[in-house]
């Protein structure tokens, strides 16, 4: 004698091994079991079809969207707005100031006395230029990385 619960479990794929074989045998040999199986199986298939999915009215989506208050909208991502002109002007100015300072230092005699001894002029000039070029290269690298990785920079 098979039960309704066994048939539902069978249809859900919950019966295995011996239980499954016994049920299949009962359905094959017992007309009552077969009738019950067919009835439950038909109900199972009807429930599985999409026929039971209902739809709201056609304007439903519009009403939901209209009901979302403007204030509740999530803030759009803040764009970093940097004037590209400034970005390229800054290192240019930096280099020009550095060069100007070096030229002035080279040609204008300045009398001073410091308690510490400075490196000779040629070495100082060289170190200063190298440091300046490194800073400039670092700056250009940072800008290009920003530009390629974050599209919002110039958007």
């Amino acid at each position: 004698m098979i039960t309704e619960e066994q048939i539902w479990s069978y249809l859900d794929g919950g019966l295995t091994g011996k239980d499954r074989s016994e049920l299949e045998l009962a359905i094959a040999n017992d007309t009552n079991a077969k009738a019950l199986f067919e009835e439950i199986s038909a109900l199972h298939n009807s429930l599985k079809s999409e026929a039971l999915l209902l739809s709201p009215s056609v304007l439903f989506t519009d009403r939901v969207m209209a009901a979302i208050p403007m204030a509740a909208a999530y803030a759009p991502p803040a764009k970093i707005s940097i004037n590209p002109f400034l970005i390229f002007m800054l290192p240019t100015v930096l280099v020009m100031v550095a060069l100007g300072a070096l030229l002035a230092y080279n040609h204008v005699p300045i009398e001073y006395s410091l308690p510490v001894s400075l490196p000779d002029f040629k070495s100082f000039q060289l170190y200063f230029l190298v440091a300046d070029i490194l800073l400039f290269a670092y700056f250009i690298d940072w800008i290009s990385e920003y530009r390629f990785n974050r599209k919002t920079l110039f958007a």
Partner: protein
Amino acid sequence: MPSNAPDDIILIDRILKGDKPAFRLLVERYQNMVFTLAFRITGKREEAEEVAQDEFLKVYNSLQGFEGTAKFSSWLYRIAHNTALTKIRNRKAEFKTLDNFETSGNSRAGVQNEVEQVFTREYLDRAINMLEPEESTVITLFYVSEQSLEEIAEILNIETNAAKVRLHRARKKLREKLELIG
């Protein structure tokens, strides 16, 4: 869901970044299921639409709280279930009877064989609406939304075994109701 449609997590990310139209896609994707669940619990189209609308507003306002540990659909259906239950608790007690029943308008007679003809959509709708809300909910989630028993348990905040028992009880009762109206 079409294969090229963005998945739920991508849509949620876009919404949280201020892309309000992305929420429309989410609503369109789930509105039928949310509405069906609400209708199975409330038994009335107007109330079901109201519940579904409230539900989507709640979802929109609490999207930041969605942690992504569970499926978005489970999270959504849990809110839908709770919203609909709150609605029916708040309204004056009404008993669903065969006389005041609302059946869905779009009856579909697509049946495959003589046995299946017994269970047309209209019969099923009527029988399902005669069940208790928790019974019609479990049937809707299992068959229409194709949630697993584990997911149903999570949505209804019950144990998996309890969900299994509830599903079995609901199906048994559904057969009885079908016999009653057949």
